[in-house]
């Protein structure tokens, strides 16, 4: 059974979806990602969906869920490289993906993530606070 690889890069987790997602794969990705965030204490997730050409409401919800779940684990999610057709479909389905940030390409997505994490770090009153400990144990 194939899985979508999740790469750790410093504070970030990188996910590139190279195949069209089917339901099982999407559910596995959701579970794997949340587990990885809590294990590594990542601050940001970057999901590249530039190769995805078909989405349905289930897929849209999974992406939205990933955003909300990682937010609970103190990680920001950026979805990059969405194709116009996919964007139109999601809007028509009434899924504007409120929980996630979006960027045009990986480069801009990385910049956005860095910016967001900087901002949250400054906001953070307790710098030692770390979510990963509370949840993985």
């Amino acid at each position, binding site marked *: 059974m194939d899985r979508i690889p999740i790469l750790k890069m410093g504070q970030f987790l990188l996910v590139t979806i190279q195949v069209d997602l089917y339901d099982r794969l999407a559910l596995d990705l959701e579970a794997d990602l949340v587990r990885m965030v809590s294990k590594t204490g990542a601050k940001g997730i970057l999901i590249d969906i530039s190769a995805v050409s078909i989405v349905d409401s289930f897929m849209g919800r999974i992406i939205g869920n990933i955003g909300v779940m990682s937010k609970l684990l103190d990680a920001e999610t950026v*979805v*990059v*490289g*969405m*194709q*116009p057709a*996919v*964007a*139109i479909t*999601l*809007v*028509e389905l009434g899924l*504007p*993906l409120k929980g996630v940030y*979006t*960027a*045009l*390409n990986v480069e*801009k*997505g990385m910049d956005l993530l860095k910016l967001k994490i900087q901002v949250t770090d400054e906001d953070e009153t307790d710098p030692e606070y770390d979510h990963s400990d509370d949840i993985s144990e």
Partner: protein
Amino acid sequence: MAIDITKIFKKKQTEILERWMQNQLADAGLREDLMSNEDLRAESEELITALVKSLNDKNLSDADSGDFDHVIEILSGISISRARQGYSPRETGLFIMSLKQALIEVVQDEIEGPKELVEVTLKLNRLMDSFSIITFETFIKGREEVILRQTDEISEISTPVIRVWDGIIALPIIGTLDSARTQVVMESLLTEIVESESSVAILDISGVPTVDSLVAQHLLKTVSATRLMGAECIISGIRPEIAQTIVHLGIDLSGIVTKATLASALQYAFRTLRLVVKKEVKAIS
């Protein structure tokens, strides 16, 4: 039937054509700029030949008869081509009406008895009337095709995406926004965002005459789709009347950046991209 109308027409075919041409040329509104007399004659001759060939005693009073298929085909062809060339309905109508006149004139010369004459004339009248109706139907169909094609063209032309600055694109919308148009607008905007790697898109609606809740919903959709792509969408060119309607209709546009003019939208875009436009200050020597 005592009088063989078909024979008369066969014999008098050339005369009918002459009379018909005379009738057509006599009309002051003849458009010689659109079609030369030779072409008109050729067209008329083709129609008469087909008509005389398919006409017989039995189908004289039955325009739906299959014998006339060829005539109707020619008529429709002429009618549609005239619609495309820009003839007026009156001119097209005259074309077929004057044939009726020519036919009746010939019949008048040939038939002696008043009773028979009336009978034949009435039948001819009915037949030619149904041909006229067919002509009009196809004429209008031809015109509608022209209109449909133009509508398509307008919606294609009227959605130009302009690259205002490196990373900023603008799309001025002119005319009413309906679902089909929003689709075109959305697609061209999103495709251009990908191509130009722009992070700000300005949607200028100063050319949109009215904004109702449907149009607002279309706008919101476009903005959401742009956001999903990873770009920011600004709506500019909101006129005072439109602002009033939006509030009266209770449409919530609070999640969207709106500006009154394209200039202020551009200024906002510059700020987002951390660009500064400054007036050059000349050093005083």
